[in-house]
């Protein structure tokens, strides 16, 4: 009998539970393989939907479901907080004092926002004129605020990278522009996008296209700004080098860290609580029978649902090989695929991996090609349709028609001069 324990029942953990249960259907029924999933609550958030809540497109009830609804019935579900993992003992210690032994452990506990790490951020003004939209509570509170906000200086800020869905704050700025335009108060609102990066985005070609879009939508871009503290009373966002951005409304994307138990588990994570993970094999550095995927890892890929989906296919093959005593066959290439909402019913699409940055061109797709790095109505419809796809195809771990696990160059147009990306091998110590 082999025991597979999956920590976390979010996007990555749920897909893994469904894929492994399908792979080992007979063994699970016969009790030869036991799959256990652990999560501290029973609330699965459709995280791509959080972006739409502040603007009233979705209500928070539209993006929540009980976790167990998306898990197979013959998988054990343990609702408990995790105290720590003891890699030497092959044991997970739960906060209620019980333990779980495993043959294979899969860490899929994602990342969380930690606004308390920035001085003053959760002080006076929090959820009055300072809001996050990365939690159901934050996005709902912001929806209420925006419904009656008369206008002023809106600052959208990323505190520090990495963050979940690195394009979401840009999308927020684009949608805010469209929202205030529709309300007829766009001329009363100054939208300012304040980022620690040296451009609108991390990758050069996409950054150029997105910088252009910001300018087109009259959104001011402030770069290389590392947020040091927030004064919610005076309405000031201050950088470590003492630059000041005044605000009437601050929408923050706070510092992200991995789950707390990671830091309590010897050798498992880095100092931000992200699991030290081999970027191709998705095996934890600490021990061969521990694997990790999704937002929980430190691999240099986007923290995004599409990445968790592609990784899950790779990891299923590797877990199967590991349990059979074979060398791990599959390697993840860093593939990421994201729609970027730009407002007014349009969206962009970007598709990239560890070595190839997002490029313009066409993305071959079942219902006709989608435009890469260019606004279109079809991309927007794709993004809205994704909520159905998420619950009914993605979480069950089904193939997504027309979206390959490994990135393809088909339809992409390399731009000149092609800015070289540092290959993954060089980023690893």
């Amino acid at each position, binding site marked *: 009998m082999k025991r597979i324990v999956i920590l976390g029942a979010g996007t990555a953990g749920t897909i893994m539970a469904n894929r492994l249960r399908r792979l080992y259907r007979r063994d699970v029924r016969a009790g030869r393989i036991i799959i256990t999933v652990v999560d501290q609550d029973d609330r699965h958030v459709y995280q791509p939907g959080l972006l739409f809540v502040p603007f009233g497109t979705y209500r928070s009830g539209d993006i929540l479901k009980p976790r167990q609804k998306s898990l197979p019935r013959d998988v054990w579900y343990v609702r408990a907080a995790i105290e720590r993992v003891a890699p030497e003992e092959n044991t997970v210690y739960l906060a209620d004092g019980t333990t779980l032994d495993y043959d294979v452990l899969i860490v899929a506990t994602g990342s969380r926002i930690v606004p308390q790490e920035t001085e003053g951020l959760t002080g006076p003004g929090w959820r009055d004129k300072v809001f996050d939209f990365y939690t159901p509570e934050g996005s709902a509170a912001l929806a209420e605020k925006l419904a009656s906000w008369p206008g002023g200086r809106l600052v959208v800020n990323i505190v520090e*990278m*990495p963050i979940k869905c*690195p394009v979401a704050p840009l999308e927020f700025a684009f949608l805010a522009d469209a929202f205030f335009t529709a309300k007829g108060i766009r001329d009363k609102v100054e939208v300012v996008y304040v980022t620690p990066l040296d451009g609108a985005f991390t990758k050069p070609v996409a950054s150029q296209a997105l910088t252009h879009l910001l300018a087109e939508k009259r959104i001011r871009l402030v770069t*290389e700004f*590392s947020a040091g503290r927030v004064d919610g009373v005076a309405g000031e966002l201050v950088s*470590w080098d003492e630059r000041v951005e005044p605000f009437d409304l601050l929408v923050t994307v706070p*510092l992200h860290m991995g789950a707390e138990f990671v830091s309590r588990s010897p050798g498992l994570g880095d100092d931000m609580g992200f699991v030290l993970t081999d970027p191709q094999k998705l095996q934890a550095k600490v021990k061969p029978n521990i694997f990790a995927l999704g937002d929980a890892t*430190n691999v240099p890929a986007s923290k995004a649902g599409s990445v968790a989906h592609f990784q899950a296919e790779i990891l299923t093959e590797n877990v199967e090989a590991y349990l059979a005593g074979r060398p791990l066959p599959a390697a993840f290439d860093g593939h990421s695929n994201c729609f970027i909402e730009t407002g007014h019913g349009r969206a962009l699409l970007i598709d990239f991996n560890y070595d190839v940055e997002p490029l313009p061109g066409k993305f071959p797709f079942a219902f006709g090609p989608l435009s890469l790095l260019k606004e279109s109505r079809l991309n927007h419809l794709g993004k809205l349709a994704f909520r159905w796809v998420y619950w009914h195809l993605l979480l069950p771990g089904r193939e997504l028609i027309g979206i390959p696990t490994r990135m393809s160059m088909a339809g992409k147009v390399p731009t000149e001069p092609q800015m070289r990306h540092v290959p993954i091998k*060089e980023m690893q*110590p």
Partner: protein
Amino acid sequence: VTTMLLANKDLEVDAEGFLKDAAQWDESVAEAIAREAGIAALTERHWLVVKFMRERFLSTGTAPSIRTLGKESGVPIKELYQLFPKGPAKLAAKIGGIPKPKGCI
């Protein structure tokens, strides 16, 4: 592989000028990289950070984040930004001869 002549040594570097081999580093290399980056002279406070960064990387395999530097290096974050303008963790890693810290994706 790109090589760069600094402090009278042929150094292997990546596209952004980070050393590929931490063993090629010595204090004269650190001073040369710092000058290239616009820091005229490394003070005692610079050295405190650079050496902390390098030792932590060599013993754990990963470079500390800006927050860890602020809490454990003996130099608070605000001063880190004065010593190493714009990106302290990145610049201190470069001067310390270790790979670029991950995080910016």
